[in-house]
C-alpha cells in the first residue's frame, strides 16, 4: 500500500517557542488515521507544515510521495482540508463561499455541494456572517468535501457540530474512506479516534509519544485496575487514582506479577484488571508521572 503522508523529523519553532520537534510519522493509503493531542501540543503546527502553510525549520513533509515544498499545487489539488477555526469572507453567501472554493479545483462541484448542503441541513442562500459557529463549520466541511479528494485532512472537525451532525459527518467520512480516500483526523475527542480510526499518533509537547494501531495503544502496557476492600497498596505506582467508596480504581503500567504480590495479605474482596478506554491510555501518555503516582 502506498504511503500518502510521510513526515520525517519535522521541526518548527516560532521564535524561541517550540511548535513541533523531530516529528516523524507515516500514513498509508486508505487509512483513517487519528492524530491526538491536547491544545498546544503541536497538532495544528504539524498539519500546517504538512500543507505548506508553515516553513519547517528542518525535516521534510511528503504527501503522495512528493515534497510539499516543491509540489505544493499538485498535492493540494488532491487534498480536502477542514481547518479547526475556519475563516470566511464576511460579504459572502454560503453558496458563494462554496463556489469560490470549488473554482480552484477546476471541477463542477455544484451538484456535490447541493447534496452536502441538504445532508448537513445548510441553507446555501444565507450570508456566512449570519451563521452560528456550527453552521460555519458546516460551510467549511462542504467546501472541503465537495471536490473529489484523495486525502482529507481534518483539524478538530466536529467542534461546534451537534451530535446528529457529528454522526452524519462520520458517516460521510466512512463513505469517502470506502471510496478509497485516506483520512487524517486530528482531534482531542478520544472517543472519535477510538471508534473510527485504525491507527493513531499521540503528540505531546511537540513530539510524537506513540504511533500505533488504536487497538494496540489501548491494550498497551497500561491497565485499569479496580479493587474492592483495599484503599492503599504499598510500593505500587498508581496513576489516575480514584476512590470508589469501598475500594480504589487506578491505572497501572507495571508487571502484573508485582501487583499480585503486593496484594497478598490485603483484604481484597474483588479485583478486576481491564484494558483501558483510549481516554485512560491518553492520560497515561499525557500526565506527568510524578503528579499521578501515589
Amino acid at each position, binding site marked *: 500500500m502506498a504511503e500518502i503522508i510521510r513526515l520525517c523529523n519535522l521541526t518548527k519553532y*516560532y521564535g524561541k517557542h517550540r511548535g513541533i520537534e523531530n516529528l516523524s510519522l507515516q500514513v498509508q493509503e486508505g487509512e483513517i488515521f487519528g492524530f491526538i493531542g491536547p491544545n498546544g501540543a503541536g497538532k495544528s503546527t504539524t498539519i*500546517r507544515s504538512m*500543507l*505548506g*502553510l*508553515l*516553513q519547517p525549520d528542518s525535516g521534510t513533509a511528503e504527501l503522495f510521495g512528493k515534497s510539499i515544498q516543491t509540489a*505544493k*499545487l*499538485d498535492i*493540494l*489539488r488532491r*487534498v480536502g*482540508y477542514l*481547518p479547526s*477555526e*475556519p*475563516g*470566511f*469572507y*464576511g*460579504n459572502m453567501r454560503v453558496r458563494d463561499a462554496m463556489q*469560490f*472554493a470549488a*473554482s*480552484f*479545483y477546476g471541477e463542477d462541484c455544484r451538484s456535490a455541494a447541493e447534496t452536502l448542503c441538504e445532508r448537513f441541513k445548510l441553507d446555501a442562500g444565507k450570508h456566512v456572517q449570519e451563521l452560528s459557529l456550527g453552521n460555519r463549520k458546516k460551510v*467549511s466541511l462542504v*467546501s472541503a468535501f465537495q471536490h473529489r479528494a484523495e486525502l482529507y485532512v481534518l483539524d478538530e472537525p466536529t467542534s461546534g457540530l451537534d451530535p446528529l451532525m457529528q454522526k452524519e459527518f462520520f458517516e460521510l467520512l466512512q463513505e469517502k474512506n470506502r471510496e478509497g480516500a485516506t483520512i487524517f483526523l486530528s482531534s482531542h475527542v478520544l472517543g472519535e479516534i477510538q471508534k473510527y480510526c485504525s491507527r493513531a499518533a499521540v503528540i505531546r509537547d511537540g513530539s510524537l509519544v506513540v504511533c500505533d494501531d488504536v487497538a494496540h495503544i489501548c491494550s498497551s502496557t497500561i491497565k485499569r485496575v479496580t479493587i474492592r476492600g483495599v484503599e492503599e497498596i504499598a510500593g505500587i505506582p498508581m496513576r489516575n487514582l480514584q476512590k470508589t467508596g469501598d475500594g480504589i480504581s487506578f491505572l497501572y503500567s507495571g508487571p502484573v506479577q508485582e501487583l499480585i504480590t503486593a496484594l497478598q495479605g490485603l483484604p481484597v474482596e474483588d479485583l478486576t484488571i481491564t484494558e483501558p478506554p483510549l481516554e485512560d491510555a491518553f492520560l497515561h501518555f499525557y500526565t506527568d508521572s510524578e503528579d499521578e503516582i501515589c
Partner: protein
Amino acid sequence: MLKHELKQGWKGMLLWSLAVGIMIVFCLMLFPELQKQLAPIQTMMQGLGGIASAFGMDRLNYGELTGFYGIYAGFMLGIGGMFYAAILGCGILSKEEAQHTAETLLTYPVSRSSVCIWKLTAVAVLLFGFNVLVVLFSMAAFPIIGQFPHWKAFALYHLAQLIMQLEIAGICFGVSAFLRKGSGTIGMAIAFVLYFLGIAGNITERAAFVRYITPYAYADGASVISRVSLDGGLVALGIAYAAVGIAAGFWKYNKKDIL
C-alpha cells in the same frame, strides 16, 4: 480570484469615489463665485506666503479653471487618492490573515505568487475605477459651470495621480506582506507621511530632497499643470519604488508562515 477581490472591494471604491468626486464637484461649483471676487482673494493669498506655496498657489493661476482645479480639486483627489491607495495596498494581503481566511485560501491549489498577482491586479483595477469615477464627476461639473479646463493639463494631472496611487499601493503591498493585522492604521500613516513630505517640499528649498521620496512631488497639481508635462525622472523613480515594494511583497509572502 480577481472577480472575488473586485467583489470585495467595489463598495469601498465606490464610497471613496463618491466622497472625493462630490468634494471636487462642490469645489468646482464655487469657482464662478470665486472668479467674481478674485482681486480680494488674490491679495489674501499673497499674504499666506509659505502656506500658499505648500498647496502650489504660487505656481498656479486660481483665477483660471485649470489652475483652480489643480489646487482645490487636486487637493481633494491628492489626499483622498493617497489614503485610498495606501489603505487598499496595506490591506490587500494582510486582511487574509486578519480575517483568518489565509489558512483556507492558501490550502486551495493556488500558488502564493498567483494570489499576489491577482490581488495586485485587483488593486490596480480598483484604483483605475476610482480615478475614472472621479474624472467623470469633474467632467459632469464642467458643463454645469460653463467652463472647461486645458484638456492636456487635465489629462496629465489625472494620469500623474493614477501613477502616484499605483506607486503608493505598490509600496504598501510590500508592507502588507509583512503585516498580520492592523493594516489600515499603517496605510494611513504612510499616506500621511508621504503627503506631508510633499507639502514640506513645496514650502522650502531646504526640503527639496523629498522630491526623490514622495510621489506627491511629480503628481502635485502645481507641478503638472504649470508645466503641462510630467517629470519623467521622478515618475521613473516612483515606478522603481513601487517595483521594489512589489518585489519585497512577493518575496516575503512566498516564504511567510501563515499562523
